[in-house]
């Protein structure tokens, strides 16, 4: 015997399916920082690119195309924690570092930070330097926040629906 689905059941089904899809289907994302002219840095200063990796993100990859016009640069890829320690502690943990860059650098690295956080790419000169860069960040992530939000709606409505059903039995 077929039964017409009620409005409340439809809401529960819709939010359950949507939340499961959002929690389980990975979405690719690409962020491109285009070259915005030449940056000039002097010793004692630094230039920085910052990007945020969401939680439950995987296969993070950085593609960097750095061209040094003149000078000498060191490049560090560090997380938020290392960035806050960086000024006080010289032994900060890096995901990647390369020193004495004097020419063009084409870099493609994959890494996997343990938690969601902001990442920093530091360009530190050892002499007056000028450079321009093109940066591409790609990763796969899940819309976890949306997923849990929709799941909580499904649970609240479902809980109320179940409670009323049991009460009326």
């Amino acid at each position, binding site marked *: 015997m077929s039964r017409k689905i009620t409005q409340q059941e439809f809401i529960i089904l819709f939010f359950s399916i949507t939340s499961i899809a959002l929690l389980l289907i990975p979405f690719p994302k690409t962020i491109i920082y285009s070259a915005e002219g030449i940056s000039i840095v002097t010793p004692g200063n630094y230039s920085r690119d910052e990007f945020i990796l*969401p939680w439950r993100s995987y296969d993070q990859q950085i593609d960097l195309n750095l061209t040094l016009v003149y000078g000498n640069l060191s490049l560090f890829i560090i997380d938020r924690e290392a960035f806050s320690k960086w000024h006080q502690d010289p032994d900060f943990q890096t995901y990647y570092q390369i020193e004495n860059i004097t020419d063009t650098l084409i870099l493609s690295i994959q890494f996997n930070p343990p938690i969601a956080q902001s990442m920093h790419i530091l360009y530190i000169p050892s002499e007056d330097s000028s450079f321009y860069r093109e940066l591409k960040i790609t990763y796969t992530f899940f819309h976890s*926040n*949306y997923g849990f*939000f929709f799941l909580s709606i499904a649970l609240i409505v479902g809980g109320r629906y179940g409670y009323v059903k049991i009460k009326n039995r």
Partner: protein
Amino acid sequence: MGQIFFSQLSQLMPVLPLISIIITADLVSGEFYNRTAIVLYSNINRNTFIRAKIEFLVVSLVIYVSLLWISLIIATSILFHAVISFNHLITGYVLVFTLMLFYVSFSFLLSSLTQNTFVAFLVPFFYIYFSDFFIALDMELLSYNYYRDTVFSFFKDISIHSNCTINDFPLLVFSLFMYFGLPIILFIVMYFEFKKIDIRV
């Protein structure tokens, strides 16, 4: 001048929706509270009734936004000795009217669904002031303020600078759709929900 006009508007943004909630919150629930619903709904066709309510809301908003605009024009001419261009006035009028229409439809829907003035006022009230919470949690698509900011900055760039750099075209289209479409969707949902109201409550 356009810059000043839009900065004045952005300062008014947190206050404007509050007025639309105040005029809407007890539009349906008030009738249940006053016990007039059973008399009115059994004698008058519900379609006529809902049409009259929507007309009342739209006319109220038109009057309210028009009065606001007249006071803005007067204030600008007195304070800055300047005249706001017609393009800015029309653009701002449509955007502010749509913003208020959203909160009207939201509050109206809740008033119909719950028949409780307190809920119909409080939920949109919290949504106005705490929807930035969604942005902080990377759930900006659930925040109407996010669409508002995207649409406002787009029209501001067009009307002031006559050009606009679009970083994310699909997002802009979606924001435009949500900003202008959501009030209509809420009114349609409310229309069907209104017909289901049990007047014996």
